[in-house]
């Protein structure tokens, strides 16, 4: 037996354990998927009936009568805008911070400190502010609110990536004839692109899933998916089949996004671990 090679029974047990752990985490999701694909009556059956005909009627209902397409658009606009703005502003401010002489520890800690405030504490003051400037029930209100917690996190996350890019590269490019903007776009940006992609994905996920601010700041016109899903719990009970269908729809973009950019995400999260 070669060094490091396991006996067959050990490999079997290992895989069995892995399958069980994976099932433990996947089971709720699989159950949601199953519930979304059966009729409403079957969804409420206890004990559950496993011999059912699969149907897309919940999805059709969610997308047509519940205006889910509209909420999808709201969520997409708000999440994308918050992500783009936080990554653009975050990338620039984080680059500046990273290139200052000294560690700028005070400034960095101040940025991190904003992440220590529970979001719920900020909801009321931000709501008051938004109403006072007449932005209530608008995409802009949500985007601005999301920026308050996305931007500090993006700055903090990108700082780590910038710090891994040697300053000598900035200096070499300055001598080669680059302005600060050219150095940023031609030299530094390509090097931290994987990190920026990872940060953008994270920012998008946070915005897409955000609930508390969306609940308070959005109205009928700007309702996002998490709020719309929560609204399926009515005074007549939980519309479980529609709720499961809308949950699957909410997850779908994240799954597609993640599989597309998996390569960048892994690169970004491991950036700098090996020189």
């Amino acid at each position, binding site marked *: 037996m070669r060094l490091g090679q396991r006996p067959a029974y050990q490999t079997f047990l290992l895989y069995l354990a892995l399958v069980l752990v994976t099932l433990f985490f996947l089971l709720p999701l699989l159950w949601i998927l199953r519930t979304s694909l059966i009729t409403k009556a079957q969804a409420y059956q206890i004990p559950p009936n496993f011999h059912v005909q699969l149907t897309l009627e919940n999805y059709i209902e969610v997308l047509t009568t519940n205006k889910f397409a509209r909420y999808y658009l709201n969520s997409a606009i708000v999440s994308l805008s918050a992500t783009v703005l936080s990554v653009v502003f975050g990338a620039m401010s984080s680059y500046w911070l990273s290139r200052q002489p000294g560690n700028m520890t005070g400034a960095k800690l101040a940025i991190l400190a904003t992440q220590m405030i529970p979001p719920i504490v900020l909801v009321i003051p931000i709501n008051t502010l938004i109403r006072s400037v007449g932005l209530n029930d608008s995409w802009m209100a949500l985007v601005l609110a999301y920026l308050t917690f996305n931007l500090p996190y993006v700055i903090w996350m990108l700082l780590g990536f910038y710090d891994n890019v040697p300053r*000598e590269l900035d200096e*070499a*490019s*300055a*001598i*080669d*004839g680059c302005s600060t903007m050219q150095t940023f776009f*031609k030299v530094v940006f*390509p090097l931290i692109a994987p990190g920026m992609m990872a940060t953008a994905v994270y920012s998008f996920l946070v915005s897409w899933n955000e609930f508390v601010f969306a609940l308070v700041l959005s109205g009928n016109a700007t309702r996002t998916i998490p709020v719309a899903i929560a609204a399926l719990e009515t005074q007549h009970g939980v519309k479980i089949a529609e709720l499961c269908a809308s949950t699957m729809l909410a997850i779908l973009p994240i799954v597609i996004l993640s599989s597309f950019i998996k390569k960048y995400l892994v690169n970004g999260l491991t950036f700098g671990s090996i020189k």
Partner: protein
Amino acid sequence: MATVQLKNIKKIYPHSESKQKKGLFGKKKDEEPEKKHNLQITAEGTVAVQQFSLDIADKEFIVLVGPSGCGKSTTLRMIAGLDTITEGELYIDGRLVNDVPPKGRDIAMVFQNYALYPHMSVYDNMAFALKLRKMPKAEIDRKVREAAEILDITEYLDRKPKALSGGQRQRVAIGRAIVREPQVFLMDEPLSNLDAKLRNQMRSEILKLRQRIDTTFIYVTHDQTEAMTLGDRIVIMRDGFIQQIGTPHEVYNHPHNLFVAGFIGTPQMNFFQTRLECENGEFYVPLYGTRFELNEKQKQMIKERGIEPQEITLGIRPEHVSLCKEGGVEAEVDVSEMMGSSVHLHCSVQGEEVVVIVSGLELGEEHASGFSHGEKVRLHFDSNVLHLFGADEVNLL
């Protein structure tokens, strides 16, 4: 090709920067600032370079040399425009450039850690500066291929820097600089990341390159061998001050002070605490019970300068100490280092260490592989090449 003039250049790093480096909780208010090396610390900050004046001629190869923290890299960075100049004036080709950004100075720089753009191929690294200048593609191609030919890196043009060895990366870094045909070529310890063999090879290549591209070079190193072999003139620095400017021959044979005498030369010059004595108008130096008579030239200089008998540090280079059969001073061998063509003997004479270089030709068969520990030898000091340093550490002669 250009002249470079530095007039009374001073660089102060403000305290705020060093405080920031310490972080928020790094230091108490009343704590003394940390003293790095022996740099002067003033109210404004740490003085990294001061009273630096130097005229560099067109096409001259100047080497700034000194121990870590002496201000040589700071000086180079000020010339490059990467660090601001606190005081003084810097002229490149007669133009005051204190406030000109790096790209306006027409300089190229080779960094210690190469600073190649990792996402670009070798070709793109070399072409980058030319593309920024919006040079026609055909001309860029010609220049890059020409430089690659000179540096023997043509076959690597399509590779990324990570696929190259240290020596190849350094060639690319040099190539990136030469394609621009700059007025001044700056090099910041370009060979210090290479192994000894490659360093020797690259050193001779830099010499060849210099003959080929014939421009003004300013080269920073802490390696005195590089300084001696490459420079037309050497600037030796310590604690932010220039110690001596001179040709390799001058700094080696006529060191201005004790620091230069000790810094230049391997193994280091031997120093002895003794006195300059005068008897009947004849000056001599007593050492280990013997008397070193000064030669006529030395006596003449002492008279001209009105030097009085005084406590001195006597300096003798290891190659000016030889082994003798009779006479001289008795010594005991502590360590014998076989260098191939010569042997470096670390001997102890009355408790003091004396280093001697013995040429391989002088070694008899019994000492072909060096000397054994504790072996007794007799040393002869050549009085024609003595260096006498006064109490202020300055060379008296």
